[in-house]
């Protein structure tokens, strides 16, 4: 799956961008900056996906990950993080001991991972030499047979189609389960984020804790009726 020519260039651009953005994510002082850097990292990775002929996944990444999850992150940052800067210069990193140990571990890990990747790839390539060549040729032939788009400049790939074919045929059960999982996540997040007042009005406080809570937060007891 060699990428050649402009694909290689774009690969390197987006790769460096992703890594850089990721690095800045963990190093940014401001949480919002952190979120934005993460968004850029995600978008870079989506571009890498496109380079890997996984357009659908790239789209899903942008829409769901960036458009949903990161927005949620930003909302929560607004809710939670607002007073952090006003309180002064707080440390953003942990105790040096922890940071030092983590860095050592990470360096060792990255060394090991890189080594493993290289080693594995070598073995993989030696094994799949012929297939790779064959695959590349097939790809080229396949690309030739692709239909052109409406404008005539690009070809319409069949990647998304084959993903759909696989997803809805062989992975339909996981698909449904995933939807149930999302449902559970919705309910869970709603429940987790309720205030005490909301819980009392929904009658979801344990009876033995209610008096305690009412004593501590008397305003909870005042339930507005009507309006």
């Amino acid at each position: 799956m060699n990428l050649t020519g402009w694909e290689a260039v774009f690969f390197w651009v987006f790769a460096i961008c992703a890594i850089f953005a990721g690095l800045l994510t963990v190093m940014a002082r401001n949480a919002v900056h952190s979120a934005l850097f993460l968004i850029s990292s995600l978008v870079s990775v989506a571009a890498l996906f496109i380079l890997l002929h996984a357009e659908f996944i790239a789209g899903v990444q942008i829409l769901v990950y960036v458009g949903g999850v990161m927005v949620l992150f930003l909302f929560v940052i607004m809710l939670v993080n607002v007073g952090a800067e006003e309180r002064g210069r707080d440390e953003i990193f942990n105790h040096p001991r922890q940071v030092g140990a983590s860095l050592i571990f990470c360096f060792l890990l990255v060394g090991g991972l890189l080594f493993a990747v290289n080693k594995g790839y070598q073995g993989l390539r030696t094994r799949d030499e012929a297939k790779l060549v064959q695959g590349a040729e097939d790809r080229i032939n396949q690309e030739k047979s692709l239909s052109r788009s409406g404008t005539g400049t690009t070809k319409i790939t069949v990647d998304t189609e084959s993903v759909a074919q696989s997803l809805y045929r062989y992975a339909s059960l996981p698909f449904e389960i995933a939807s149930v999982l999302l449902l559970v996540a919705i309910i869970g997040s709603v429940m987790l984020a309720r205030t005490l007042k909301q819980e009392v009005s929904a009658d979801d406080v344990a009876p033995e804790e209610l008096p305690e809570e009412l004593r501590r937060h008397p305003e909870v007891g005042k339930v507005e009726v009507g309006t």
Partner: protein
Amino acid sequence: MILTVFAFVVQEASGGVLSQMKESAKHPDLSKFLVIGAILFIIGVAGVLTRRNIIVIFMSIELILNAANLNFIAFSRYLQETGNVNALAGQIFAVFVIVVAAAEAAIGLGIVIALYRNKETIWVDEIDLLKW
């Protein structure tokens, strides 16, 4: 370190590993993607372990998941190339990873909000109730 540099120099003298690298750079293949994924993964891990802000930790976790996604997709492409019938499983799995990441982010942030309401803090080192 010095030994590594020295070894590198020596190897360079003995056949040009740098030129090899230049060549391979012109044709990035699976290994490059995997390396990128690994590096992203490590960055995410470092962020989880190092940052004090709980939201940033969550974002680092998203980075980790993303790196894993990259890995999946890269392999999916590679397997397509090598003619494996289950090649698309990588992409499908990536879909599910994204789904799970989204759900997990939602729940996790809900917890963060509840935690913030109780503890009034977002610094994880202040949340040490399990300390002896």
